[in-house]
Every structure is written in C-alpha cells, then in structure tokens.
C-alpha cells in the first residue's frame, strides 16, 4: 500500500497532466477553426481551377494532346508517392493511419515488382517510414510553419514533383493525406496527381472558348498550377484533420486523467481513514492496557 505522501504526489502530477491536455485540446480547437477557414477559402479557387481544366480537356478531346501531365506516359511501372503527415505528434491515430495505408500500398507495389519512390511531407511520416522504407526516400519537405499551410510550400513541392516527372523518372504520382470528415473522423485518402484525372461532368456541356495563346500552351501552363492546387488542397485538408485528430485525442486524454484522479482520490481518502482508524485502535488498546 503506497503511503499518503506518495498518493498525494501522484494525484498532483495527474492533475497537471490533465491541465496540459485540456489546454492542448482548446488550442487545437482554435487552430482547427482557422484551418477549416483556410480550407474553405481555398475551395473556391480549386473548384474554379478544376472547372477550367475540365472544360479545356474536353475541348482537347480527340486532339493529340502534347502534355504528358494530362495523359500520362502510357506506361505504369514507376510510381512516386507523396506522403503528407504532420510536423508534430500527440494527435491520436492521425499519422499512423496515413502511414498504415501507405505501407500497404508500398507492399503491393513491391510485390508487383514495380518501381516506386517516396516523398515525405512533415516530420512524423518520415520518422515512421524511415526504418522500413528509408531506401526508397527521394526527398523530404518540412512544414516550416506547422500552424499555417502556405501556398508557397505547395508550389515548392509541385515544382519538384513536376521536374522529376519531366526527367521521365516517373509514370504516376499520388499523394496520401487525411481527408477531413469531422472532428472525430478523418479518412486517409490517396489521390492521383499525375496523370491529372479530370472527372468529366457530362451534364455541363462544354463551352467553346476562344483561347489566347492556343489550347496547348494554356494547358501546359494550367496543368502545373492545377497540380499545385491539388497538393495545396491536400495539405490544407491534412492540417484541418491534424487539429481535429489532436482535439479528440486530447479530449480523451483529459477524460482519462479525470477518471484516474477520481480513483486516486478515493484511494487516498481510504488510506487516510485507515491510518486514523489504526491510530485510534492504538490509543484505545493502550488505554485498556493500563
């Protein structure tokens, strides 16, 4: 049986843990709101972007398109996988769910004897994958400012990716991230970047545009931007998911700490009572002996 002093110390330490997790939960809630706003305000741009791209690619249909970014290279044997994770831990299953999904895909590619390379974004994904798949690493990007996803980082990543692609290193590019569903559910998602699959909405009859400069040139300008936008969207989704996951993880931790404090307090009270009873027995039996 631990003595009273030990119990008291434990209770205090769990209490301060609870304070920390509670604070982290509230910080995450505030950051989540910001991240959601950022995702919301970028949605407009990405929607417009994919509209333009859809129009353009349906106008290009039937014509020989020069851009391999849109069509793909024709083969499918070299893959580039971008794994987007977070820079900080303590966010529940956020990072491991992405890593788990990515790992199972790695295994599939490996078994199929296909070539693949990995780009990691965010420190946590790198740490988790390094030991097993370190040989496949191509590059790592840090999220410099972990709280704010900037467009610049998306530009940096996409420039690098497109460059690698044009050096005909790869046939397909995919990005792995957590799609934000709600605070309690984030869905690990793999999205294809290259070839830029455009979901054709048949009901939207394509408008015939006049182009300046010609279609090909616009397309070659547009595609890298569309890819950047997709990466940016993925990063923003990821940022919102991270805060959501952290919030619910910290909420759980706060609750667990509370339960633990209750249990320990009961134990503390019982042992104190036991000590008092013991003392009383000693006094009484001492008085009786006289």
């Amino acid at each position, binding site marked *: 049986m631990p003595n009273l002093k030990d119990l008291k110390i434990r209770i205090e330490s769990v209490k301060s843990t609870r304070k920390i997790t509670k604070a982290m939960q509230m910080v995450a809630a505030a950051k989540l709101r910001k991240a959601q706003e*950022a995702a919301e*305000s*970028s949605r*407009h*741009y*990405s929607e*417009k*972007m994919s509209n*333009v791209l859809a*129009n*353009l690619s349906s106008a290009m249909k039937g014509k020989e398109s020069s851009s391999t970014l849109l069509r793909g290279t024709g083969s499918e044997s070299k893959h580039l996988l971008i794994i987007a994770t977070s820079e900080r831990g303590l966010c529940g299953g956020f990072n491991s769910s992405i890593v788990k999904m990515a790992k199972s895909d790695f295994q599939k590619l490996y078994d199929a004897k296909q070539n693949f390379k990995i780009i990691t974004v965010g420190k946590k994904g790198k740490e988790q994958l390094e030991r097993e798949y370190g040989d496949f690493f191509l590059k790592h990007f840090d999220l410099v400012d972990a709280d704010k996803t*900037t*467009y610049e980082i*998306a530009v940096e990543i996409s420039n690098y990716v497109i460059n690698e692609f044009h050096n005909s290193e790869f046939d397909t590019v995919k990005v792995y991230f957590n799609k934000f569903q709600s605070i309690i559910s984030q869905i690990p998602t793999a999205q294809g970047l290259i070839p830029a699959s455009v979901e054709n909405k048949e009901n939207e009859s394509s*408008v*015939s*545009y*006049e*182009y*300046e*400069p010609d279609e090909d*040139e*616009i397309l070659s*300008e*547009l595609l890298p*931007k569309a890819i*950047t*936008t997709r990466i*940016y969207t993925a990063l923003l989704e990821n940022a919102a998911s991270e805060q959501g996951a952290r919030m619910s993880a910290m909420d759980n931790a706060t609750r667990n700490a509370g339960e633990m404090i209750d249990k320990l307090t009961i134990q503390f009270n019982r042992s104190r009572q036991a000590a008092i009873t013991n003392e009383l027995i000693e006094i009484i039996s001492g008085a009786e002996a006289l």
Partner: protein
Amino acid sequence: MSDTIKYELVCPESKVESGEADSVLVPGYEGDFTVLVNHASYLSTLRPGMLKIFSSGNEIEYFVDSGFAEVSDQGLVVLAEKAIKRSDLDKGTINIMISELEEKMEKNEGNDKDKILKQLSDFKSLI
C-alpha cells in the same frame, strides 16, 4: 438585361474581390483586353500587370502576377497566383519579385527561359 458583368478575382488562399462591374481590363498574355457584358467565351493566361475594375465611376486596381482569366456566360473569373491591391503595392515588392525571377532564370537553362524573360520584361515595364 443588366449591362454590368459579374467578376471574381480569386487567389489560392482566398477570394479577393467579387461583384458587378461595368468593365474589367485584364492583362492578358498577348496584351490587355477589356471584358464587357456579353463578351464571347474566352480563356487566356495572364502576364504580370494591372487588373482594372471599372464600376459606376469607381476604379479598383490590382496587381496580378500569373494565372488565368476565364470569360463565360457566367461572367469573368480571374484566377491569380498573387493579387495585390494597388495601394499595397510599392516598388520594393516588385523589385523583390524581379530578383526572384532572375534567380530562377539562372537556375534553369531549359525551355522556360523565353517565358521567364517575357515575365521579367513585363515586371520591368511596371516600374
């Protein structure tokens, strides 16, 4: 039938400006063009330059660096990588962008060189 055109200026990080205007002057890749109501469907890339929005005597000016302008029957949509309001723009910011471009040009000798050179001269004409 209204004689104003709906316009939107959108950046990756936010929607900058939207509303109705009498006409909008867009810095297109091959030259400025003005969009009035009932303009034919048109898609153009942008060069670095000033976007001018005219509405009922007012004039709003934005600097845009690169992106697209799409004119359809729904109005004008300008997708710009960067959009800075005229009043927030000074020579310093443009100079920074110019030096960034020059750095980029030194780094790659590839086929993008012509494009970058053109962008560079567009920037320089702004000063």
